[in-house]
């Protein structure tokens, strides 16, 4: 989005992508156009800030999930190891005591 020069005058066009094509919308010239440009810039900046804030939330959530996954892995391995060495085995994902073979 920018002011465009046509001859000696400057005009403000708002550009939006619609269905894969860029549509140009004429919004005026002079003081009103300049004001419109400022508002658009502000809106764009706010949207970007919101995107960044959301990305930070997602990243933090991922980090915490990875940490808990790591701990779960430790717990599962340790639990499984202790059970295995004490004669348990899994049958259909359930731990059972292995029967002594005669």
């Amino acid at each position: 989005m920018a002011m465009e020069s046509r001859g000696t005058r400057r005009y403000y066009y708002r550009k939006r992508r619609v269905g894969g094509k860029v549509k140009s919308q004429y919004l005026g010239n002079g003081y009103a156009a300049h004001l419109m440009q400022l508002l658009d810039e502000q809106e764009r900046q706010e949207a970007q800030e919101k995107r960044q804030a959301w990305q930070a939330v997602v990243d933090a959530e991922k980090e915490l999930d990875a940490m808990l996954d790591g701990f779960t892995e430790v717990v599962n391995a340790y639990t499984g190891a202790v059970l295995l060495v004490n004669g348990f085995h899994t049958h259909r994902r359930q731990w059972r005591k292995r029967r002594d073979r005669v």
Partner: protein
Amino acid sequence: MVFTPTGGNGENDVTEFSEINALFRRAHKENPKPEDVEMLREVLEKYPALSSITGELAGQAEKEIIGHAYADHPGRALALHKHCELQRDELGYKSATALERLLIQHIVLCWLRLYLTELRYETAMRDATLLQGVYWEKKLSANQRRYLRSIETLARIRKLSINVQINMAHQQIVT
């Protein structure tokens, strides 16, 4: 931050866990080779401090999760730590075996994650976009599943009435 087992001897703990995990994967099948199970037993005996290391890990994780949520509210953070402690007591942490203690710590961590996600979910849903709403719904469901699984594991272990015995170096530990 990816959570890796650290504490105690630092780098060695990661090696210990990797070794146990690798051996466990080899031994954990329909008919495990007796030598694999024996090796697993030897590794557990070789690293007797492992259960205390996992306890440290749980403590670190708890601090990390609460710190992330209440970095600017030390009072709330303290209250939540206290609540975690109470939960552990209610689940019989003090009188539990070593294996059960580990599982109780896991349950409390999963509960903590679920509780904080519920809070985030409620706050976020007031002004969330559709995509963000879906994200929090999924996150909440995943944490609920994780919490339930952790409780089931403890219940199963207790149902098996395991009096698991590991002979560790000079001491016998009943877990």
